[in-house]
């Protein structure tokens, strides 16, 4: 009886055949909608930094080394392959390839570096504003002025240490309402 069961099992397993893939010795392409390693087309890229701003894993970095040259660094090792960079690229310079055999012994093997030329501003002849890095100074470009009393009302003042004098000033303080009232 035991032997008969074994023979039946053998017959069942022979009917099924071999399902094991010979994977590392024969290629096995990924399905069509598979998102593999993203690939940059450096001829199309305009260096808008949309991919760098939207990457959830922050794997795309931009370095402005000088005027007119911007370097885009992509580190594929931490990438989650979500495909957001390819979705929002305005020039369609990024495509999600079907490459998935990315295993290495060195993390530097799966990085991409792209050197980009940038267009200059027609008014000032430069690419970036590398001089004014202070955010308050940058506000002056939008029309902010220190001596405007209306705007000064809104600014909160603070001290490094607790001061009772500043606290006294706040007694009977009313929040500024709408400026146009």
């Amino acid at each position, binding site marked *: 009886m035991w032997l008969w069961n074994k023979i039946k099992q053998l017959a069942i397993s022979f009917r099924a055949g071999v*399902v094991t893939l010979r994977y590392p010795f024969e290629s096995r392409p990924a399905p069509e909608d598979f998102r593999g390693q993203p690939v940059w087309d450096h001829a199309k890229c305009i260096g808008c930094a949309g991919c760098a701003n939207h990457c959830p894993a922050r794997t795309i970095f931009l370095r402005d080394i000088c005027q007119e040259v911007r370097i885009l660094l992509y580190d594929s090792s*931490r990438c989650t392959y979500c495909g957001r960079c390819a979705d929002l690229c305005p020039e369609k310079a990024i495509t999600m390839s079907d490459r998935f055999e990315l295993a290495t*012994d060195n993390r530097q093997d799966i990085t*991409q570096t792209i050197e980009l030329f940038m*267009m200059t501003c027609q008014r000032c002849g430069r690419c970036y504003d590398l001089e004014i890095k202070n955010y308050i100074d940058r506000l002056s470009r939008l029309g902010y002025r220190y001596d405007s009393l209306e705007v000064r009302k809104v600014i909160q003042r603070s001290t490094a240490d607790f001061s009772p004098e500043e606290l006294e000033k706040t007694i009977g303080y009313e929040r500024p309402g709408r400026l146009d009232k």
Partner: protein
Amino acid sequence: MTVLKKLAGRAFRRSVWVYHCNSGACNGCDIEILNILTPYYDVERFGIRLVGSPRQADAILLSGAVTRPTLPLVKKAYQAVPAPKLVFAIGSCAIGGGCWYDTYNVTGGGEKAIPVHYFVPGCPPRPEAIIYGVALALGLVEKKVAPVELKQMEFPVDMYRQARLFEVNNVIYKLLGEEDDRLDSGRK
């Protein structure tokens, strides 16, 4: 001694017993690791077996960004593996922390905790990718990736020309002199 080392190296390659170490993964990578043991991707043809204890293992398959509570446990598991040992970081989290590389309770990848020898990126990596990574360590396949450096060698003159065309075609104010010239040329 060298003969013995060679023999040991060959024996090591013939049957790698792996220990699956989850250090706070989302279970995506774990399911893919279990997937390679199924009859479809049968890895026992390379002598790879999943074992329950790091003391019996030759290699660690590390998945998940190493979180703060699991950090001492991962270190202990690495120390428990006998000496010729390999560590595979499976998935983006184990390689560098993935999305959580700078979070307050994440160490930031397996490399911060233990030395990692092979990296298998993917979120999660396909079962084929994991098999490829292990086969790379065993010397069955060759490495397929290399660092890519791209440069816009040509200055993008085309972009300047496009801007110039846009200016010419969308003229709001025309100078009187230009108008006269154009009229003159039309007469000729």
